[in-house]
């Protein structure tokens, strides 16, 4: 009984690392740009497909492919921002949401068109036998994914905390007008924020694609889960998104373990509805405008 709980805890932590990555990208974009990014799940799928293409079709090194897929995600994010979001910077939040839904439709179906509906497997250099430590076993690939996710989270925190562009992002986050008056180029910050957030989503996809399978609709559920994570922590709350990511990982793992495997994916959504009904500002956020 205890052993089983420990195993779920480990699985939840490993899953939570990539969820945190997804959530942080989404919440950063909302916080800085006030954009509800419906393309986030599609960027995740894009990252996974790029790893597949680079490893399986071009025969590149696995680790190099992860880096390249993330960079391609950054580039695609920058493109989406420049073409779609820049002209709409002064539009209301609902119009931007509609445009992002349109963009997500285009991205997802282009993926379907290019790659076909059959799920793809990505070969990895890791062995398929799990590492066993006491009562707990974990696949080496999952351990690697978790390590990279944590490294990216720490790197991202350093970027926000220690660099000039990070300071500019935080300033825009707090007050775009004042930041602009202080000489922050808000347009540039928006492009970088969206590119960076998209890059994090693509990285999450590139990491999880080889763990599961790569399919065109993989972005759908993940995009919604990213919203779940962000809502748990409060929209625009960065530490909240990290906590929300791990919380969702645990809820899914323990829910699947003790309640029902079939409803695994439903737990997250039920959790959001519950959180919004009881504590609409999110679990972590102290006070925030929700109107």
């Amino acid at each position, binding site marked *: 009984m205890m052993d089983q709980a420990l195993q779920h805890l480990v699985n939840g932590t490993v899953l939570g690392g990539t969820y945190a990555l997804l959530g942080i990208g989404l919440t950063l974009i909302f916080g800085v740009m006030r954009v509800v990014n419906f393309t986030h799940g599609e960027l995740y799928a894009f990252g996974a497909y790029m790893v597949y293409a680079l490893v399986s079709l071009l025969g590149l090194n696995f680790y190099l492919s992860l880096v390249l897929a993330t960079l391609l995600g950054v580039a695609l994010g920058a493109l989406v921002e420049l073409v779609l979001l820049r002209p709409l910077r002064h539009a209301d939040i609902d119009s931007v949401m509609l445009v992002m839904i349109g963009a997500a439709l*285009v991205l*997802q*179906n*282009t993926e379907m*068109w290019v790659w076909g509906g059959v799920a793809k497997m990505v070969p990895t250099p890791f062995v398929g036998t799990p590492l066993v430590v006491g009562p707990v076993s974990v696949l080496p690939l999952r351990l690697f994914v978790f390590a990279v996710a944590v490294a990216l989270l720490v790197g991202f925190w350093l970027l926000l905390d220690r660099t000039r562009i990070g300071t500019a992002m935080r300033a825009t986050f707090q007050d775009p007008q004042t930041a602009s008056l202080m000489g922050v180029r808000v347009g540039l910050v928006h492009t970088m924020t969206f590119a960076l957030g998209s890059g994090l989503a693509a990285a999450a996809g590139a990491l999880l694609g080889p763990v599961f399978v790569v399919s065109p609709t993989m972005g759908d559920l993940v995009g919604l889960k990213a919203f779940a994570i962000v809502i748990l922590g409060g929209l625009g709350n960065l530490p909240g998104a990290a906590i929300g990511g791990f919380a969702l990982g645990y809820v899914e793992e323990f829910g699947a373990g003790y309640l029902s495997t079939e409803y695994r994916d439903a737990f997250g959504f039920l959790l959001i509805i519950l959180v919004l009904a009881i504590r609409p500002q999110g679990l972590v956020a102290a006070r925030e405008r929700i109107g």
Partner: protein
Amino acid sequence: MRYFLPWAFLALLAAVPILLPDPYTLSVLASAGIFIIGAISLNLLLGYTGQLSLGHAAFFGLGAYASALTTLGFDIGIGFGQRITLAPQPVWFGFLAGIVVPALFGWLLGRLAFRVRGAYFVIITICFAQVLRLLTLNWVELTQGPMALSGIPALSLWWPGLDAPIALFRKDQIYWLVLAVAAVAFLLVRQVVRSRIGRALVALRENETLARSVGIRVTHYLVIATVISAGIAGAAGSLFAHSVRIVDPDVFLFIYTVTMVIMVVTGGKGTLWGPVVGGLLFGPLPDLLRGSAPPEAQWIAYGVAMILIVMFLPRGIVPAVASLWPRRAAAKPAAVAVEAEG
């Protein structure tokens, strides 16, 4: 002239099966009509309350499932050795269930979701539809899960004095029934919008704080609008179930909500004719593209259309056309304002 135009339009639509008695065309138009009913109901929320509800497929799907299950009957365990059993009911009864069940869920969702606004509201509505999809996918005993509910009885009509209901198998009969329901939905939404409820909704769309301060019970009216909207969407779902005669959990997919949203936004949200115009444009599109392009092309076209409309024609086609009519605008400024704003 303005008074007779809608009736002439309705008469024209009613004459389609006589002028064009092609079963394929009629079935395409009937399925477009079902989505137009959905769009009309969505417009009440999206257009008149200004709440971007992206879980609308939930009400549509609930209507489809409620209606199908009522007419097929079911026998499920609810734990503790207890069972709920329902013998198959007539189709008109299923149709009523297809309105009442989504309306109840609309009340529940409204009570829950209108505690929040903006992005939070949008996400809660999306999650609502997702939970229902996963529920129908996994509750195999009730819904057959991914195997789908099949053998759903065809639509039928019955009125007092008639011995047995008339089953509607022919495409023209289904078309007329869909048209009739659409006309009722249109008139119902028009009545709501022109009533005290509609004025309250527009007031809170324009300025919620102000609406609250003059004593409008915001949540109360939002919930009423959601219940009405959910009921109409459920009716569309019921029509869908009994004309396609098979329902699977995919009716809850986000893509169906998006289809209705595109119809409303393209036609013009917050206008009575917007969903009809948008629906006539986009409703037949899937069938027109079916032979010549892969299914992805349709969704890509939808996505591009959505982006272009929001960017270049943000208020939609109907207000844009209305503003091309300066003579009428000059003669009757109040009437035009009412039509454009609601």
